[in-house]
């Protein structure tokens, strides 16, 4: 599904010279996986997410997404790929203000080339999938943080993306709402969605079926192995929890 090989990225900082943020990063994500990318601030995880999400382009290296090499796409092709292949979930939700839940979820369809049928109905279906069928006409400001993030997830789902990129999705939520959002990700993952969770929080990351540690611009598999080994029960639980419904079939489609 995703294959990064030797991705490097550096930024020019005024007065400080060049800063290499990513150093020959390589890793793969298979279809249906729930992967967490864990790193502290300044580790390069945001840059990695931007590159994964096609919001930024690497200086060197190859990025293969859903069978296509996307390292060399034009800006227009990148936008189209973002629209059809990737669903974003952000820490700050990024809902349009004074706009209803349904209209927020519709937004990606504005930029979709292959719209046939009722955009409104598609949006409502997506909201039902995240359990917001009774909040369709609520404005973003009238929703709790957890509900706003659900709207954002419904928006990420509406174009049936190949991967969902979630950047600290629980960072602005209380514990209960955060747990519900993580449950929702597990549910979606069980239903077949590929999920990449970007976080600084090892505990949150441990809920994923696989962890990728990033430190100082490099993937550190050794560290990943140690961390994973230190919490075997939790990870196993998450893995089995994710696998079982998948074997039972996809409940929402």
């Amino acid at each position: 599904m995703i294959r990064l090989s030797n991705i490097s990225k550096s930024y020019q900082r005024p007065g400080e010279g060049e800063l290499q943020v990513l150093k020959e990063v390589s890793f793969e994500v298979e279809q249906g996986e729930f992967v967490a990318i864990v790193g502290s601030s300044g580790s390069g995880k945001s840059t990695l997410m931007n590159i994964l999400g096609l919001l930024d382009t690497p200086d060197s290296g190859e990025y293969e997404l859903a069978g296509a090499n996307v390292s060399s796409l034009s800006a227009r092709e990148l936008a189209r790929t973002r629209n059809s292949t990737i669903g974003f979930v952000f820490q700050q939700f990024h809902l349009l203000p004074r706009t209803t839940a349904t209209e927020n979820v519709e937004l990606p369809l504005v930029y979709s080339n292959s719209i046939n049928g009722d955009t409104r109905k598609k949006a409502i279906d997506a909201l039902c999938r995240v359990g917001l069928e009774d909040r369709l006409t609520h404005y973003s400001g009238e929703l709790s943080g957890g509900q706003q993030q659900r709207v954002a997830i419904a928006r990420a789902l509406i174009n049936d993306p190949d991967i969902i990129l979630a950047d600290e999705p629980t960072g602005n939520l209380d514990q209960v709402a955060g747990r519900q959002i993580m449950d929702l990700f597990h549910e979606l993952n069980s239903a077949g969605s590929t999920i990449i969770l970007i976080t600084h929080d090892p505990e949150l990351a441990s809920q994923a079926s696989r962890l990728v540690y990033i430190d100082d611009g490099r993937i550190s598999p050794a560290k990943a192995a140690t961390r994973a080994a230190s919490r075997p029960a939790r990870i196993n639980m998450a893995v089995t929890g994710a696998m079982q419904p998948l074997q039972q079939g996809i409940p929402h489609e």
Partner: protein
Amino acid sequence: MNRKLLLKSSLRIMFRNKLRTLFMSIGVMIGVGTLIAGQSLGSGAEKQLNQSVNKIFSPGSIMLVSRTLTYGDVEAIEQQMEQVVASAARFGGGESDISYQGVTRKTAVFGHTVEGEVVWNRGVIEGRYFTNNDMSKTARVALIGHRLSELLFGTDGDPIDEEILIGSVPFRIIGVLEPAGIDPHGEDRDEDIYIPITTAMRRLNNTEYIGIAKLLVSDIEQVDEDADQVSEILREQHNIAPGEDEDFAIYSSTFVGLMVDKTNRVLNVYMVAAAAVVLLVAAIVIASIMLVVVRERVAEIGLRKALGATEQNIGFQFLIEVVVVTLVSGLLGIGLGLGAANLVSIFTGLPVIVSTDSVAMGLAAAVVVGIASGILPARKAARLDPVVALR
């Protein structure tokens, strides 16, 4: 891209920020309103001016003006130019006191010939016009403008056969002149008094000179050539040596038509220039508001790009948002302009003529202002880096 959804969202945004939208609209509304009001009243005024000028300078007419113009001059022209089908002298005697039973009114007195009825294009609505008999007898008879008649005899009074004094000379009223309205100089031609030209020259002013004559030629296309020929005849009549200045002036209908067109054009240009200045200021206001709006909506722009919007999509969206506002403002401005024009019309009596051209021009101006003021903010929005915008 789904344009229907996008247009819906720009309308929503427009209503969401009512005060901001109002500030963006107001300049375009006033600008387009000025344009429409100016054009509608301008065309109305133009039509009125053309009508009143046409009344005097009907196509194919030549006017001679000279302090030394005599009957002999006009006769010479008629004899030498068979294309002159009619001619009529007019004697402008200046203003005199007109009195009736103690009521006195200062008004313009003109001496006219029998032919004046046709050549000067003004007959009577009551009573009779002058006859050759009136001319030869230098009769003390007068035609009266209907407004002067109302002033002297009341709205229901019958002026026919009443005796008035022009200065101290008694005249009998034999007819009421056709209404002619206000002339381009602002004089009310319905307060005129007409008397036989012979009476005016001999009895009132004791002069040989007629002042003004009007000629009608057979071919309106030839009127300028005919005017040149008239000029030659008059130079001969007045013994003016080659190179010497003429003591007369000749105006042809085409020449006057050109002058009128020029006046109308100048008026129009002023109105358009005033509207253009307002619209320019409006465009600057809108552009600066939109630049702030773009900065305010950085996160939204980043989000839209993450969701698949291209630079073109984002630019188009902001441009559409501005154009929707200016176009709606333009429509309101047209309403405003028509309202203002009709209001002015009520007070001045100027006719209002609304042409589809001016409405189309108003709408086009609104769209142009929208595009011109939106292009810079739209470019700025389009070029935002989504990574920076989402941070």
